[in-house]
């Protein structure tokens, strides 16, 4: 019997030490039936790309509260691509100023969630992104 599960890497790049948001999202995705690999705090882009590769995830969720998203996000996208994982969808949660949204989208970030975002929306959009990929 083939059993396909959505695998998600939830990672915290950079130096901020607040992972409540990451844990809430990890828990919500778990309750939606997904397999969530949590990396812990203070990951470099290299560590995140390596974990995404080893775990063969469908989705990477980044939690960034430090304001360094415009430096970290493109680096992670670039490394995923370099490793041959262009198909992996990347989501960001955290404190992201509105003016950065268009550029992040343009880079290829699939979804961006600030404070107050509903976990239901996140789940829905993760599912949609993965289905899109599978089709």
């Amino acid at each position, binding site marked *: *019997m*083939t*059993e*396909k*599960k959505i*695998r998600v890497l939830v990672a915290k790049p950079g130096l901020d030490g607040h992972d409540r948001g990451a844990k809430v999202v*990890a*828990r919500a*995705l*778990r*309750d*939606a*039936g*997904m*397999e*969530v*690999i*949590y*990396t*812990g705090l203070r*990951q*470099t882009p*290299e*560590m995140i790309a*390596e*974990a995404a*590769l*080893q*775990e*063969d995830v469908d989705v990477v969720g980044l939690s960034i509260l430090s304001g360094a998203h415009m430096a970290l996000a493109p680096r992670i996208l670039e490394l995923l691509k370099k*490793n*041959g*994982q262009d198909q992996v969808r990347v989501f960001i949660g955290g404190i992201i100023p509105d003016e950065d949204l268009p550029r992040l989208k343009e880079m290829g970030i699939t979804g961006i969630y600030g404070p107050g975002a509903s976990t239901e929306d996140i789940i829905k959009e993760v599912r949609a992104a993965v289905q899109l990929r599978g089709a």
Partner: protein
Amino acid sequence: MSLTESVLAGNRLALARLLTQVENDSPEGRRALAELFPHTGRAHLIGITGAPGTGKSSLVNQLALHYRKGTDRKVAIVAVDPSSPFTGGAVLGDRVRMRDLSGDSGIFIRSMAARGSLGGIAKKTAALVQVFDAAGYEIIIIETVGAGQSEVDVARLAHTTVVVEAPGLGDEIQAIKAGILEIADVLVINKADRPGVENTERALRSTLELAHPARRVFRHHGQTMSVSAPAIDSTTWIPPINKTVATEGKGIAAVIASIAKHVEHLRQSGDWAARDRARLESEMETLLREALLDRFFASVQQVKYEETIEKVINRNISPYEAVKYLLNGKQV
């Protein structure tokens, strides 16, 4: 190049993708397993088990670091965490304690959800291990879910089973119960800087003495009594007890030495081959059971099956009779 060929050539992305195929039991995964099987049988499989929070992941982190020091042996880690029985989802968090291993291309960590298996590892853990074995990983560390007393499947899979204890988890009665302690080839008391470590060590040692009685002299009520017991000879393996503080890397070299000694013992006693045989036999049996069940469900009429269940629910026939009826088709 096929996925299998890429894996054999050392391509890590291909390896990661194949692991997914195998975990999901896809036709491609099954085909690849068959192709890879002749390349397996070279790795040393080390199982790490113990209660939640004893420090299994931290210990695995340290063991992998040590195995990589000064050698080019590749190390694979398969870390299993539980799946939710309600949603099937899982949070796999063993990597959090293994951040030291990042950046070494000779190490491959794969997290796995148990997906409903209750024996401490997942149904497909053995298959994932085979893929790593074929891909040239010489040391394969299998970390079980936080295990209580009876999650002992890892002992069937691994050559060497390391059971991790920590101070303060239980008294001597816990230690003489059947189950997880019995499968230990090497015992580790982690968090050995915590109070109570002497008690834990004493309890474990007395358990081992009960399991492996030696000829010795007891002092009992002032009298010296000679107690004879089955002699242990050089072929008896007595699990060594090691004390570690894994988060600080203390005591790890001794654990590595104990594991190496155990391998030597397995090779000399012929147990290596015996364990290999037992493992493959039990794997074949499991697959046979699954295949027979699939074949049965393919052959039985859905209506007949449901009717039979109804009869059981109405207490018309017993489950035993129902099985007999479904298999032989005879009316009860």
